[in-house]
C-alpha cells in the first residue's frame, strides 16, 4: 500500500543542508494499522506530509498503492491525494463557514462526483461516525470529539485506500480521545489501512505495529502485542 525505499528529504539553504529524513524505508501493507512514533523533530510529520503527497522528497523511492509518485506534477499529486488518501488532522481542520455536510463534501467536490453520489457518500460517512443527525450543524456548535469525527467522516467519504492521521487525539480530552481511537480501531477492523503519527505510547501500543523514528531514520521496528486483531485483508 505504502512503500518508501531509501527515501530522503533534505532542506537546503545556501550554506546548510539539513536532512529531515535519511535512508528512510517503510512498507505498510493493505489493512495495516501502523503507529509512527518518535521524539519532537525526529521527522514524523515530514514522513506524514511526504506520505500524503503534500511535500516532495529529495531522494529514494515512494510507491503509493502501486503508483510511483516521483515526478508527478501538482495536478497528478492532487488527484492521487484526493482519490487514495484521507487525512485526519490533530486540529480537525474543519472549515468554519461550512456545516458538517458541506465540510464532508469538500473532497468529493474535487473528485467531481455528481450531487446524488456526493449526498450518498456524505450520509454514509456521517452514519459511520455516528453524526448523521448533526449534518446541518456548524463546527463551532460541536464538541472537539464530534469535530474530529466529522474530520474522520470527511476522510472516509472518498473511500481512500490509506488513512493518514496526525496526532488524531492530540487536541482532545481523555474521554473524547478514547472515543476517537475506538472509531479508528473499528475502521481498521473493517479493513482500513491506517498510518497514525503520535508521540503517545499508550496510543501507539493500540496499533498493530509501531515504527520508531529518530533523526529522520527508522531505528526500530517493534512487534507490538496486538490489541487490535488484524483484518482479514491484512492477514492476506
Amino acid at each position: 500500500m505504502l512503500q518508501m525505499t531509501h527515501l530522503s528529504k533534505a532542506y537546503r539553504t545556501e550554506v546548510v543542508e539539513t536532512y529531515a529524513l535519511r535512508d528512510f524505508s517503510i512498507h505498510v501493507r493493505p489493512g495495516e494499522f501502523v503507529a509512527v512514533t518518535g521524539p519532537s523533530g525526529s521527522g514524523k510529520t515530514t514522513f506524514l506530509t511526504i506520505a500524503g503527497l503534500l511535500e516532495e522528497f529529495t531522494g529514494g523511492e515512494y510507491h503509493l498503492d502501486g503508483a510511483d509518485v516521483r515526478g508527478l506534477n501538482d495536478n497528478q499529486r492532487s488527484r492521487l491525494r484526493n482519490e487514495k488518501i484521507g487525512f485526519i488532522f490533530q486540529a480537525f481542520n474543519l472549515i468554519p463557514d461550512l456545516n458538517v455536510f458541506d465540510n464532508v463534501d469538500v473532497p468529493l467536490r474535487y473528485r467531481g462526483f455528481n450531487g446524488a453520489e456526493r449526498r450518498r457518500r456524505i450520509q454514509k460517512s456521517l452514519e459511520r461516525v455516528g453524526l448523521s443527525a448533526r449534518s446541518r450543524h456548524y463546527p463551532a456548535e460541536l464538541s472537539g470529539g464530534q469535530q474530529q469525527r466529522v474530520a474522520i467522516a470527511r476522510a472516509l467519504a472518498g473511500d481512500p485506500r490509506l488513512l493518514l492521521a496526525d496526532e488524531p487525539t492530540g487536541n482532545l480530552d481523555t474521554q473524547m480521545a478514547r472515543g476517537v481511537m475506538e472509531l479508528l480501531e473499528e475502521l481498521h477492523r473493517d479493513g482500513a489501512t491506517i498510518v497514525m503519527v503520535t508521540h503517545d505510547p499508550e496510543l501507539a501500543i493500540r496499533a498493530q505495529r509501531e515504527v520508531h523514528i529518530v533523526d529522520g531514520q527508522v531505528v526500530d521496528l517493534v512487534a507490538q502485542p496486538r490489541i487490535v486483531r488484524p483484518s482479514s485483508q491484512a492477514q492476506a
Partner: protein
Amino acid sequence: MFGYYIGLAIRSLRRNVVLTVLMIVAIGVGIGASMTTLTIFRAMSGDPLPGKSAQLFVPQIDNWGPRKGGGQSAATGSKLQNQLTYIDASRLMEAHAAKRQSAMYGTGLPLIPANRDLQPFTAPIRASYADFFPMFEVPFLYGAPWSAADDAAHAAVVVLSRKLNDKLFAGANSVGQSVNLDGQTYRVVGVLKDWEPIPKFYDLTDEKFGKGADVFMPFTRAIDQQLRGWGSFNCKDPPDSGYAGTLRSECIWIQFWVELPTPADVARYRLFLQNYASEQRRSGRFDWTAETALRDLSQWLRFNEVVSDEVRILVLVSFSFLFVCLLNAMGLMLAKVMARAQEIGVRRALGANRSAIFTQCLIESSVIGLVGAALGLVLTALGLLGLRTLLSQSASALANLDLLDVGIVIALALGSAILAGLYPTWRAGQVQPAWQLKSQ
C-alpha cells in the same frame, strides 16, 4: 464547480463583512470617479458621425493676411480662421467642386404658431443648402430635405426638428403644412428624427455641445431675408453698413463643409482651394499668398479644442485615483487571503490543485468586482447628476450614461477587481498544504 465557487465566494465575503464592504467601496468609489470623468471625456471626444467623419472636410482660407484678427487657434498654432466670409462661401458653393457641399450659419426668427393656444416664440434656425442633410446623414421622420432646385429658387421651405413638430403639430406628419416665420409662410417639406450630434461638430463657434436648430431653411432664402448670424462674427476691418456691406466684407461668419469620399477627391479639392486662393490674389482681393487648409472632421474637432487639456488631465487624475483604490483593494484582498491560508491548505490537502484554488479566489474577486461595479454605476450616475447641475444646460447632454458606458463600468470594475485580486490569488495558489500539518 462554478456554482460551488460562487457559493464559497458569497460565504467568504459574508465572513468578514467590514473587510468586504471596504473592498467593494474601494473599487466602487474608484470606478465612480473615473467613469464620471471618462463618460464626459467620451462624449466630448466621440466621433459624432462614425463611418462618415473621414469623408467630411472643412475648407479654410486665410482671407485676412499678415494682419490678423480673431478666430485663431492657439493650440494648433494655426493662423487660419475657423469660418469663411460670405464671399468665399458663395464662390465655393458656385464652384461645386465636391460631391456635396453646404455653406451654413445659425440664425433665428420669431415663429407665430397657427395654434392660438401657443405663444409666439423665437425659433433657432440653421440656414444651409440641401446637401446638409445627406452629407451629415440627418435622419428624417417625415418627408425629405428640400431640393437643390429649392436652393436655387430661394424657396420658402423648411425642415422642422422633431421637438418643434411635436410642439406645433402634436407629432403628426406636418409635411405640406405651413409655418409662419416672422410673418412669412414657409412650407414644411420634412421633419427630422431626434438628431443632436455631440459635439455639435458642424458649428463649433458658439456652444460646442449646444443644441441644434429647430428650423432648417435654405441658405439662399435666409440671405434673401437678410438674416444675420447668431453665432461668432469676426472682422479684420469694420464692414460697410447694412446687410449688403456685411455680405461684401471680409468678416467671417459662415461655416462650410464638403463631402469628399475618396483620397483622390481630397487631393483634388486641396488643389482647387489653393488655386482659388491664388485666383483671389491675382484678382487683387489679397495682396498676400493666402494659406489654405482642408481638415477632416476629427482634425476639425482638435483644431477647435473640443476636448480641453483640463478634461484630459481630469481623466488622468481620476484614473490615478482608481489605481490607488485598486492598490487598497489589493491590500485588503491579500489580507483576506492570508487570513484564509489554513483553509486553503486544508483544501489542497483534500485534493484541490493550484488551479482550483486560483479559480476559487478569482471568482471571489469577480463577485467583489460585480458588486463594486453596481456601486460604481450608482456613484457614476450620481456624479453625472451632480455635474449636470454644474454644467450649462446645453452641455448637460454630455453627462449621460448610455448602454456602452454601463458596459464599460462593469468591464472596468470586473477587470479592476480581477487585477487587484491577481496577486492575492497567486499567493493563495502558493500556499503549501504541508504547512497545515507542520504548523500544528
